[in-house]
């Protein structure tokens, strides 16, 4: 199956997400679609798979122009896409998710048989009666792949499939993709910003930058070549850096946490001034619960939390912020910023000192922070009109200047490399002044690069890597899959 894209354009407001993209994709190969966050690769793939219409341009399949509306229509011509957050229905069981969308004639029994058959073929382990809500992202991907294959897809698009899955799951996934392309002659499009994955798997790559197609290349290629293509310049890898590590500031004393998804049993740890602690783990393995328990958004079931010797265990979130913690959550517009409020109003919210708001002062301060944090936006703009990177900058601008401990969920989620490095520069500056940082990230690179210590979580269990400079992305990948015993050896 050969796919050709001709002059695809797509705009979102002022952003030209896809700008005159034309390419030919030959069948039976694994093709990497490379580009950093915001380069337009997901948009292009959503257009190809029917999730979004292009503003203009044409899609040709085996030389014939197709004009489909909706993903189901794309599947009918053989193009299926696995979204980064797999589009299942959490309340459905595995078999219901599989069945929903199959031809009307298929019965539940047939669905079960087919599900089992395809799963076996690729070594996927999917229990048909488990609700999808209880699966890991890796398993949900497997379910979605099986579903798309059962629908007869001949071109499979995967959007950042290696984010948030373990090394073991990644191996299974890559084996499956190779089998699909080598043995069954399918086209696989792997959307990624991770060079290692592309190098390991792909036969060729196409590279997008700022909405344009900037190059394609047959593999093998070196990392440096791909970086040059992705960014238009060479990017020096971020150096590991260490600051001066001081005395313990935040003490966790056999803390036990129970939330809806996971239980973390008696975790003890001292977080020291100027230290960066990276938390690794699959979604919902306990790292988020730990961070939220530290700031008081979840009650601990046992143990104590102390800051500079002061017991915070029974204190509210607000009291802990006053005591010197700072927190930012992963979803910026869901938990962090208030859509509908202006930048100035956000700034005014941070000032607790008096009952009346001094609007001129708030405006002035906002102007100052906009300049200092290089935010593209005006003080009177509503926050949701800013781009993700600028929202993150404003969130940083709102955080207290020099807290004792910053606890950050995925501080660079969805940011392009410039914004991400900028955020880390800011964080490292604060660390240099003695602030301790606890963060998590699905991007293991980020954890290895910036942490002094790493805690790996798996289903509530945890494993501490005292010296992060000894850690590698690959080893972490195995650990987040639960291979703690191996690591101990």
């Amino acid at each position: 199956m050969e796919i050709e894209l001709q002059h695809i354009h797509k705009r979102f407001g002022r952003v030209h997400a896809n700008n005159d993209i034309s390419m030919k994709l030959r069948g039976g190969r694994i093709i990497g679609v490379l580009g950093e966050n915001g380069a337009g690769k997901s948009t292009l793939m959503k257009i190809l798979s029917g999730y979004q219409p292009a503003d203009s341009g044409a899609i040709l399949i085996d030389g014939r122009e197709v004009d489909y509306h909706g993903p189901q229509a794309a599947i009918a011509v053989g193009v299926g896409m696995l979204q980064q957050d797999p589009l299942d229905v959490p309340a459905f069981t595995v078999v219901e998710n599989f069945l929903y969308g199959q031809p009307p004639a298929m019965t539940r029994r047939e669905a079960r048989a087919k599900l089992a058959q395809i799963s076996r073929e690729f070594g996927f382990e999917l229990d048909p009666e488990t609700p999808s809500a209880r699966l890991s992202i890796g398993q949900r991907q497997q379910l979605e792949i099986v579903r798309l294959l059962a629908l007869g897809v001949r071109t499979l698009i995967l959007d950042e499939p290696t984010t948030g899955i373990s090394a073991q799951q990644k191996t299974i996934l890559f084996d499956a993709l190779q089998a699909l392309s080598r043995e069954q002659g399918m086209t696989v499009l792997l959307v990624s910003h991770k060079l290692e994955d592309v190098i390991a798997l792909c036969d060729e790559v196409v590279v997008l930058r700022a909405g344009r197609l900037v190059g394609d290349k047959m593999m093998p290629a070196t990392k440096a070549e791909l970086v040059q293509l992705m960014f238009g310049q060479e990017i020096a890898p971020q150096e590991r850096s260490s600051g001066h590590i001081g005395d313990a500031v935040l003490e966790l004393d056999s803390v036990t946490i129970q939330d809806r998804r996971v239980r973390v049993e008696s975790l003890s740890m001292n977080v020291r001034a100027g230290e960066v602690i990276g938390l690794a783990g699959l979604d919902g393995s306990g790292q988020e619960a730990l961070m939220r328990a530290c700031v008081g958004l979840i009650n601990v079931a046992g143990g104590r939390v102390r800051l500079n010797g002061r017991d915070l265990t029974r204190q509210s979130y607000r009291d802990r912020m006053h005591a010197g913690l700072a927190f930012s959550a992963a979803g910026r517009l869901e938990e962090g910023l208030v859509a509908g409020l202006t930048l100035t109003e956000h700034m005014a919210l941070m000032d607790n000192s008096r009952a009346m708001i001094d609007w001129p002062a708030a405006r002035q301060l906002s102007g100052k922070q906009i300049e200092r944090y290089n935010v593209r936006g005006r003080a009177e703009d509503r926050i949701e009109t800013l781009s993700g990177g600028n929202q993150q900058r404003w969130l940083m601008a709102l955080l207290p200047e020099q807290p004792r401990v910053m606890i950050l969920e995925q501080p660079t989620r969805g940011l392009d490399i410039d914004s991400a490095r900028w955020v880390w520069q800011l964080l490292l500056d604060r660390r240099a002044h003695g602030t301790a940082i606890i963060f998590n990230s699905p991007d293991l690179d980020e954890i290895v690069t910036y942490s002094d210590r790493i805690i790996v979580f798996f289903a509530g269990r945890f494993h501490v890597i005292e010296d992060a400079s000894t850690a590698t992305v690959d080893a972490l990948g195995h650990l987040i899959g639960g291979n703690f015993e191996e690591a101990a050896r």
Partner: protein
Amino acid sequence: MTANRTTLRVALLVAPILLSLLITAVLVLAVGKDPIEVMTAILEGAFRNSNAIAGVVNFWIPLTFACLGLVITFTAGLWNIGVEGQMMMGAVFASWAARTIVLPTPLLIPIEIVLAMAGGAFWGVLVGVLRVRLGVNEIFGGVALNALASVIVIYLISGPWQPPEGGSAQSTPPFPAESLLPEMSPEFPVSLLALVLALVIILTVYFALRGTRWGLNLKATGKNPRSALLLGVPTTQTALSAFIVCGAIAGIGGAYRVLFTFDSLRPLPSGGIGFLGLLVVLMVANHPLIAPIVGFVFATILAGSTRLRVVLQLDQSLAEVLQGFVVLLVLMANGLRGRILSSPRSSPEVVQEQPAPTTVTSAAEAASHE
């Protein structure tokens, strides 16, 4: 382009009102009456003399109290359907003071008002606690507490507070004259004190929402309680305070009904004015200064319609039908305007609206976070 848009805006403001009048007229014709006569009767009922105008003002005052309270809860993203019950409890508490405390008028009135505020706030905080602490959606809590307030009123009238000649379930005996709000003049029977109080509340709410930290807290909580909490807003207390303040303001409205409109406690002392307040505030998109203006129009219809039964033997519910259609169609016209103005080439931000803050069942979510 801009001229077209202005025309469109005006058209979409006028059209729903005309359409509601038309629908109402058809209904009137359907029951065999003349719409023009109905209109005349309503206008006469509202404006035929200074006494009638005073009647309008007497609806407007409690309605304004209800509206201003509701502006606060809506700002906090809360559906305070319980406002009706909060008015009733204000009326009950004021009635207790009027029946029990013997003091000269200038001393008694403030006590009655403070007690009415306490009664309304009490009923408001119940809805609030159910919502923010126990996860019961405020719509259901409000509906139930409205009904319970009504039960309490009827119990008092037919039980402990019944007239000595026996319970007729119609009303308590009249309160002593010293306990009632004085009227400006017999030709224009309106309470000046209440009028001034209403104006003070309008301005206070307006400035509290614009210029105080509490107002900003309400706004942030209403738009996104989770983010607000993380930004340091005490969302639980903010939501509770909204219920308390709304209840207190609505309670004054309830007191006005028993201490001025009537001179006794009657079944359903709020008379649906709280619900009408909800309609008004929905229609004006929560604006504290426009609400009293639109409220005046609605009060006119309400006061005028009392004449329908006398003159045309028509049920007063016709006025409610008209008001309901106006609000419904204005909201739908707002949607139509948004739909037309957000056509492809216009600004992208219109599309980006957040989903509505309140869905019936996501009740606990906001609060359970703290």
